[in-house]
């Protein structure tokens, strides 16, 4: 089969590799019909995340048709059309039983690596680093899906791929970020980053009862999507000082909750940004937590800072003084996918939301390297690339 493989920083190639087969008896094999490039794939593309190996198949947002199931798969059968969550969960352990699926105790075969860097291992992920499982990803014609009865959900036949695909990651991720804010009537929510997760966080915040959402980015097309598709007010951080703009718009209170949908590769300007950038290049600091710093600094006293953005390692100059003295709450984590996929599928079916609004580009699987390059450079107003294997 064809698969998009990583061969180093900014080096991708669609290669012919062996087809996946059933290894554990709870596995299923999915023939992929749609697969997307995620912002977190760019962290891998840029070489910022350790423990990726040459030849690894990328991709963790995919859906398709079941073509084979292991002996112990009970709920799914060949021919079912499914969307697959990016995180792999066993469904049996302490964490899965408490619906903390992304903290699954058993799904990461390389847990020892994660324990070295993080203290404990979270769940294994598709198409990510070996530290997080090293499972072959879904930017391919086929993928092996472990714990098939726990992860994938069936997609109704009437629902097009473009609407269902983002149940694999970005929609539930934006939703969980907004849910973590425990939104009360009248709440004003600020969202850093208007990529797909940020845009879904805005939509989700409104669906959960937010009064106003203020979105922060620098790309005009993303700010436009936030305004026109999601109903947010926007701040262009290249034109305005974020803190001042937020204080002005909330009459000095600050946003009731702040969502950092940017993560470890935030952009900014000024000395702090250059310092972070230099430290990252010298490997003194793994992440550039600019959005997180701003979010903590701007958040209303007693508010919540919710972090769906991905961080990898160690961060400097986090304003813990502000965090402590303002009595903030920090909520974060990889998304507990299985908790949200079915209810959100129902919201799509009911017409409350059509997630396909984020798609800006559709390419053949063979064009994946070009898709990454375009997405990285934000060329041609790129917000979301969907790859179509076999197209």
């Amino acid at each position, binding site marked *: 089969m064809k698969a998009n493989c990583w061969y180093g920083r900014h080096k991708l190639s669609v290669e012919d590799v062996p087809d996946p087969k059933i290894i554990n008896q709870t596995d299923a094999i999915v023939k992929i019909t749609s697969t997307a490039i995620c912002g977190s794939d760019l962290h891998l593309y840029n070489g910022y995340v350790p423990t990726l190996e040459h*030849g690894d198949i990328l991709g963790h947002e995919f859906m398709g048709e079941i073509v084979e199931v292991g002996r112990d798969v009970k709920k799914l059968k060949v021919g079912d059309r499914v969307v697959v969550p990016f995180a792999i969960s066993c469904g049996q352990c*302490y964490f899965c039983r408490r619906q903390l699926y992304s903290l699954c105790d058993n799904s990461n075969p390389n847990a020892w690596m994660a324990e070295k860097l993080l203290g404990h291992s979270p769940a294994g992920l598709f198409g990510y680093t*070996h530290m997080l499982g*090293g499972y*072959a990803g879904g930017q391919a014609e086929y993928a092996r899906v472990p714990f098939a009865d726990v992860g994938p959900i069936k997609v109704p036949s009437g629902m097009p791929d473009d609407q269902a695909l983002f149940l694999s990651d970005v929609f539930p991720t934006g939703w969980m970020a907004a849910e973590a804010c425990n939104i009360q009537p009248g709440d004003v929510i600020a969202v850093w980053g208007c990529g797909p997760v940020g845009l879904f966080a805005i939509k989700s915040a409104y669906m959960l009862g937010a009064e106003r959402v203020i979105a922060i980015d620098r790309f005009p097309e993303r700010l436009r999507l936030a305004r026109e598709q999601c109903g947010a007010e926007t701040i262009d951080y290249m034109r305005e000082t974020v803190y001042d703009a937020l204080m002005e718009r909330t009459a000095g209170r600050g946003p009731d909750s702040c969502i950092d949908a940017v993560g470890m590769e935030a952009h900014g300007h000024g000395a702090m940004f250059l310092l972070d950038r230099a430290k990252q290049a010298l490997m003194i600091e793994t992440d550039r937590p600019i959005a997180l710093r701003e979010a903590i600094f701007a958040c209303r006293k007693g508010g919540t800072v919710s972090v769906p953005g991905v961080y990898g390692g160690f961060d400097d100059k986090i304003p813990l003084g502000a965090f402590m003295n303002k009595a903030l709450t920090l909520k974060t984590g990889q998304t507990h996918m299985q908790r949200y996929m079915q209810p959100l599928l129902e919201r799509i079916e009911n017409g409350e939301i059509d997630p396909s609004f984020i798609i800006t580009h559709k390419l053949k699987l063979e064009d994946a390297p070009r898709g990454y390059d375009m997405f990285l450079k934000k060329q041609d107003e790129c917000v979301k690339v969907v790859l179509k294997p076999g197209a």
Partner: protein
Amino acid sequence: MAMQTKNRSDELRMEGAMAGHSGELTERQQSSRRAPQAHRNGDTQRFAGSDGLAKALGWFSIGLGLAQITAPRGVANMIGLSDDRGFMRYLGAREMAAGIGILTQQYQSGWLWGRVAGDLMDLALLASAFRADDARRDRLAGATAAVLGVTLLDIMAAQQHSQSDTARRRSLRSDAIRSTKAITIDASPETLYRFWRNFENLPRFMDHLESVHVIDNKRSHWIARGPGGRKFAWDSEVIEDRPNAYIAWRSTGNADVRNTGNVRFDRAPGDRGTEVRVEIAYLPPAGQVGATIAWMMGQAPEQRIQENLRKLKQLFELGETPTTEGQPSGRKGVLSRLSPVGLLEEMR
């Protein structure tokens, strides 16, 4: 006769390393919950307590030495000594050597005692300066008080380190490779005890074991795989058995790898199953075989036991071990083996 003596000394080494048998082991395990124990691979933790003072003194030495070397006149003037740049620079070099020794050497006590000797020399120097006709007594008195204070700190640090260095040297002298690990498994202590008590089950989650054959209620025969397909065999006997709670065993007779181990099962709080704690120790024999085994077992023994326990957990929680072995990739030979992940795996 010589043989017997050797065996006896092995016995002592073994017991020293493994804190005796059964009853003592249990006590030791209980204490291990409170504080990290000294291991062959991780013995430094235990001695971290007095390090702060030693480090501070080390940096103080370097700072003072640097000042004495680069600005001898200034320093001499400050303490009220007459200007002898050469001698002051010599004192500076002595300070720096002590500082570097304290900060970089594994056994710091010698260097710390060196500082104490230096302090006494300084005090003698100051005493003789007092007797000089042109003595600036106010400054000399200040300097003497400061040196007395530092001497006191040096003696404290040197004493602390003498004790911990002795303990550390003693623990390193033992050749046994000893590891403890714990995991929480979602199964009852009864179930896990029953599974473990049938030693024939151990190869199902201990990768290096090829088979265990149970001979009778106490004795069993174990076969392990070594590097290059080499096999090691030994008999083992149960030395303590408390149903649903604790099992301890040790090798008997002429084992290739003398070893002992124990496992305890405690009900985890909050209905989370069982806390399983394992302690295993090996005493490799001398010679080539011993070196091979030491190499094999010494490859992150803690990690090995941790992985074995994880496999046991997956066996009970899932019925199988999730793996990525056999999945496709676009790997192209040599390159991937040189990758950081490949190297990490080699190092395990």
